[in-house]
């Protein structure tokens, strides 16, 4: 047996690099979160230097916690991540099962399906919010206008007109509104990441034990029970992977929030940090520390839930 120390040492470059990548900015953030530090101040120019003499203890944390937007941002962070994960997993499983069997043009459909995953987040957001979801000039607006026009014509039609006059006219939905902007983000990110889930589930399904499945069919198992008792358990590990990777990516969503509504109604923690960082670095840093804590809570939670499946 060769020496085991060398192989262990092979981990060190990666670990050390990531440690530096984490520790240096994090410790600076931690330091800034305990001092008064603003970029520009006409009243208190001394606060523009990050120095120990500007120490203010938990003042920044206090200020952030008392901010109306803080709780909202935490809620939105969770709402957005959880909804996207849930939707992509459900859609991903359904689509993967759908295209798992051969049919004419399967490879083309696969290409079409996977494409959204390669699109840049900023492109995704401007594309959806301007050209598709816009209530007047986007496809949504045009579709609503067209349908309402058809409805008008039908109402004027003799004989059946009374029937259509019972139908309400459609109202376009504004996806930049306070009430809806989080859903716009969820829709566009789900569009982008469902292909990823499909990709992972699809490859997993290909290694499913077909003999077992055929045996089950002979035993009289229906489509549903096949899915429930054979396919789903088989997918548990890929599902864990999809959940994990997406939680990692979507906790730090930024461009989509900015482009949809500038944080109105969909503000998450990273975006709140960005708003503070306009001038008040102390508050931005304190919010950053809260975001780190949230991330760690989620990481521990995920580890509890799916860590075992994930690491085996």
């Amino acid at each position, binding site marked *: 047996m060769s020496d085991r120390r060398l192989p262990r040492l092979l981990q060190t470059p990666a670990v050390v690099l990531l440690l530096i990548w984490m520790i*240096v900015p994090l*410790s*600076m953030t931690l*330091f800034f979160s305990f001092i008064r530090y*603003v*970029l*520009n*101040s*006409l*009243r*208190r*120019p001394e*606060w*523009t*230097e*990050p*120095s*120990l003499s500007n120490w203010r203890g938990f003042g920044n944390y206090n*200020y952030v916690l*008392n*901010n*109306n*937007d803080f709780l909202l941002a935490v809620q939105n962070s969770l709402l957005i991540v959880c909804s996207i994960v849930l939707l992509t997993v459900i859609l991903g499983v359904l689509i993967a099962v759908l295209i798992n069997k051969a049919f004419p043009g399967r490879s083309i459909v696969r290409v079409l399906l996977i494409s959204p995953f390669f699109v840049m987040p900023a492109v995704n957001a401007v594309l959806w*919010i301007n050209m598709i979801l*816009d*209530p*007047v*000039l986007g496809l949504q*607006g045009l579709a609503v*206008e067209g349908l309402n026009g058809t409805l008008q014509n039908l109402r004027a039609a003799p004989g059946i007109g009374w029937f259509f006059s019972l139908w309400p006219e459609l*109202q*376009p939905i*504004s*996806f*930049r*509104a*306070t*009430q809806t902007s989080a859903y716009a983000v969820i829709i566009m990110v789900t569009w982008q990441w469902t292909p990823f889930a499909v990709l992972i589930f699809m490859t997993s399904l290909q290694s499913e034990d077909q003999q077992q499945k055929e045996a089950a069919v002979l035993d009289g198992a229906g489509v549903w029970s096949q899915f429930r008792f054979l396919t789903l358990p088989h997918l548990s590990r890929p599902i864990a992977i999809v959940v994990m990777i997406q939680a990692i990516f979507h906790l730090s969503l930024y461009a989509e929030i*900015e482009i949809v*509504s*500038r*944080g*109105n*109604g969909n*503000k998450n923690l990273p975006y709140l940090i*960005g*708003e*503070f*960082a*306009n*001038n*008040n670095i102390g*508050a931005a840093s304190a919010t950053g520390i809260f975001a780190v804590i949230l991330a760690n809570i989620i990481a521990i939670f995920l580890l509890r839930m799916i860590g075992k499946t994930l690491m085996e």
Partner: protein
Amino acid sequence: MSGKSALLGATALVCMAASGAIADGHGKELTIAIVNNGHMINMQKVAEAYTEATGTKLNWVALEEGVLREQVTSDTATGGGQYDVINIGMQEAPIWGAAGWIEPLNFSDAYDVEDILPAMRAGLSHEGTLYAAPFYGESSMVMYRKDLADAAGVTIGDNDSWDNVKAAAAAMHDPDNGVYGACLRGKPGWGDNAAFITTVANSFGAAWFDADMKPQLDSPEWNAAINFYVDLLSNYGPPGSEGNSFNEILALYNEDKCGLWIDATIAASFLENPNVAYAQSPNAGNPVGANWLWAWAFAVPAGSPNADAAQDFIEWATSKEYVQAVGNHPEFGWGSVPTGQRASTYDLPEFQAAAKFAAAEMAAINSAAPEPTDLKPYVGVQFVAIPEFPQIGVVFGQEMAAALTGAKSVEDALADSQKAADGIMREAGYYE
């Protein structure tokens, strides 16, 4: 400084050579950060002649407004050096000048500083020193569809009353045929809906702060102004107004979907429908009209290694010669010259012929007062020239969008804005 330098000490030893190499070496080269607006894009072509004449190579970095501001701020606040010329607005210029982030500008006599419109000069200076030179400037005015107004039997006069404007919007409003009475900014942002709403509030006699810099958003004037704005836009505006700013409304207007539009004077040069009329912004009986004042200006950040070349470039880009260069350029012509910066531009017959909105724009700019007045104790019209304003304006903008969509009542939105603004001002040490 101690914490900063301690952390740096460990790492700064590495790679010092790299930083030196970029600074000098290959002659004169300027890195210029610009917003991606039409005039700026044209400038990149016009400036080819400047490069030929002076040998100064120009690197353009075009960015979205918010990202530009963020990047220029983070660069300047960390000592500068990445950009030689930056595109900033009227909100930043006096503050950054005061903070020593940007260099004072000194121009040759031929430049004729006096020709720059007084309102622009005032807004871009700090304590009498000019810190940024206007590339183009704008105010706001009413633009409306003459044909629709005539058909509805309404008119909008200069400095008309808000009630009359609302009546005109109501008369032109015809959603079944895809025409909405009033298209106004609703997209959150201190430079977007907050800018427009502030001008409405000004005309209602409201102000952001009192003499002690305490926020006044809970005043009855604000309440009246916001109620009016929300009422006007939610009744006679297009669906999704909370997502509309300049670009979105321009698209709507050019699709003939808007009756009237109150926005930047620069919009007039983009309008396609020939049936357009202009009017000076409305007011509610106060001497301050509801029109703003803004300039996209050039400044030299402190720490630029090429400050002299940068000043030279700015002198060229904001000169009378530049206006001539654009007007005589085969690709652009007099309809594309930057406006709102120099009085002499408006005297040019070629320009007057090409720009029908020139007189209205000039009048709007001249009637805006950035300096403190009886009604407001601070510098700025649709913003306040203090470093904390963008943060306040961002929160305010979101609250207003929430009020517009009905997610909150006007009263709640204003109360929450007041609370946030008070918190920010307290944090910033204006008062205990």
